[in-house]
């Protein structure tokens, strides 16, 4: 286990640019832009104007949730590129032989890469997302204090909102990672064999499989096949219409992370999550056998 944790840690060290420094830089830029906007008066229209007077606490909820969505998009993109790049990194960096001189199996190495993709790497982005939320709240609070719409008495409510939204983002991230785990494993497995070509190939693969089904099994066109329907279902995060978010958005109740999480967990197809996890392990096993047998000097 010690070796496995060390391997996960090396993934963090190798990719901290994308998962730590990049997000931190974005936060600094965003924070700088906010401060600048505030100092030149542009922020007034957005934060201290009518919006804060109508529903001050709702703005805190919406803005941090918006940040959560933005960070989720960033995470999806970086994890996709991580899987396509990180699984092939040892070969590309010419360090394959070094890692093969270590007493760890190829499967364990690949498993550590996938483990990093669902733990420490998104965890780091989550940490930065929390920091960005904190800065956002700081700026918003100071703004409301300056324009007289805020008060220190509201700090407790703001902290509670922060906690709820932070928890909601965490639950969304965990469910999302579990839901999309097989896709990450597939991209990683492809990258083990074909390197960064895994990016276009993994995007083309669904169409190719659907095309094959259409050719062999028939149908109106490739996009009406079972494969396409299944992939459509499997790529859609189960946070769809008529869920808690819709109800909360249209209502006046404060955001509740517990209600949100309960709704999301109930909407998850856990059998599919289990199938996905088994598929991910199978992908990793096949990729590790390829890595074990491929010419390490090549």
């Amino acid at each position, binding site marked *: 286990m*010690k070796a496995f944790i*060390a391997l996960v840690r090396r993934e963090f060290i190798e990719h901290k640019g994308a998962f730590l420094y990049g997000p931190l830089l974005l936060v600094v830029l965003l924070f700088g832009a906010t401060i600048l906007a505030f100092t030149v008066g542009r922020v007034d229209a957005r934060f201290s104007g009518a919006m804060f007077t109508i529903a001050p606490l709702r703005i805190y909820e919406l803005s941090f949730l918006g940040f959560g969505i933005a960070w989720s998009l960033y995470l999806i993109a970086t994890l996709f590129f991580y899987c396509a790049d990180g699984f092939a990194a040892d070969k590309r*960096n010419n*360090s394959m032989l070094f890692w*093969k*001189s*270590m007493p760890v199996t190829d499967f364990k190495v690949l498993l550590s890469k996938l483990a990093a993709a669902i733990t420490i790497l998104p965890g780091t982005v989550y940490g930065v997302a929390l920091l960005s939320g904190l800065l956002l709240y700081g700026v918003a609070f100071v703004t409301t204090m300056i324009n007289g719409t805020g008060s220190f008495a509201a700090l407790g409510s703001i902290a509670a909102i922060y906690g709820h939204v932070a928890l909601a983002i965490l639950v969304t991230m965990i469910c999302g990672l579990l839901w999309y785990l097989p896709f990450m494993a597939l991209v990683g497995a492809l990258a083990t064999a074909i390197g960064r070509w895994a990016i276009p190939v993994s995007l083309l693969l669904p169409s190719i499989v659907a095309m094959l089904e259409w050719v062999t099994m028939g149908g109106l066109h490739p996009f009406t096949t079972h494969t396409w329907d299944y992939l459509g279902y499997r790529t859609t995060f189960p946070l769809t219409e008529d869920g808690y978010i819709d109800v909360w958005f249209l209502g006046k109740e404060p955001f509740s992370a517990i209600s949100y999480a309960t709704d999301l967990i109930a909407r998850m197809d856990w059998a599919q999550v289990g199938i996905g996890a088994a598929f991910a392990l199978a992908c990793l096993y096949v990729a590790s056998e390829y890595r074990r047998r491929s010419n*390490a000097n090549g």
Partner: protein
Amino acid sequence: MTDLSASVEPIVSARGLRKKFGGKEILHGLDFDIPPGRIYGLIGHNGAGKTTTLNAMLGLTNCEGTIRVLGEDPFARRAKLMENVAFISDVASLPRFLRVRELFALLSNIHPNFSQAKAQSFLTGTDIKPDMKIKTLSKGMIAQLHLAVVMAIDAKLLVLDEPTLGLDITYRKRFYRRLLEDYMTEERTLLITTHQVDEIEFMLSDIMFIRDGELILHMQMETVNDKFTQLVVNDPGLQAQARALGPVYEETRFGQTVMIFDGVDRAELEPYGTLSTPTLSDLFVALMQRPTANPEPAQ
């Protein structure tokens, strides 16, 4: 070939080792044993099969035939085997994104036989500092660091495949001296491949010459010294007489004819000229003549 199968259990044992790449056979059924506590030189031309043989020993490639390293099938049990086997296959293979201290910290957790204290002590007196990123180190420094890493692993077998490739003579000499002084013990076995055969000759206990996927020489250095004789002969008449004794190799250097004999009594050769033991590189040139590379057969 000298039979080295002693009563001790060999560290490496290969029988009928064959390897094909895309239909072309690279190794043609190698048979050899490497006993513990020896320093082996595996020497051959580019493409002779050295690296493939090493890869088979290290579990990096699957081969036909049987190969056992420390009693294990290397391809099936590579991870387990690497607890007791260390290797440098390429000096540039250290992960370049790490700092030196990060590398040592990771290895402390990944490798059960790695000693961080030992690795740090091997770097004492070098220009390598713990906070340096590996990608900022020079080629020579990376070789020093890699050597420190493998020497800090308490392994029974150390395999070095062209470990000093691209390094200048100072680094190369320092590399091998350090290896001998700080690492080698009677329990450890060292296997080296290099093209700079003269530089490792002093430290070898045994040599294996591999040519076109076949072992053409496998013997202890003492036996090499006894078995092979180099004769320098100037007189054309004496040359003809010496030639009648069947040299395995003959060439003319600066007007002198040099012949190498295999298994010919020195007393028999003495009347024809000056005798000496051929250097490993002379022997290499003598025994590695390939009909494909040299249309004229070796004399």
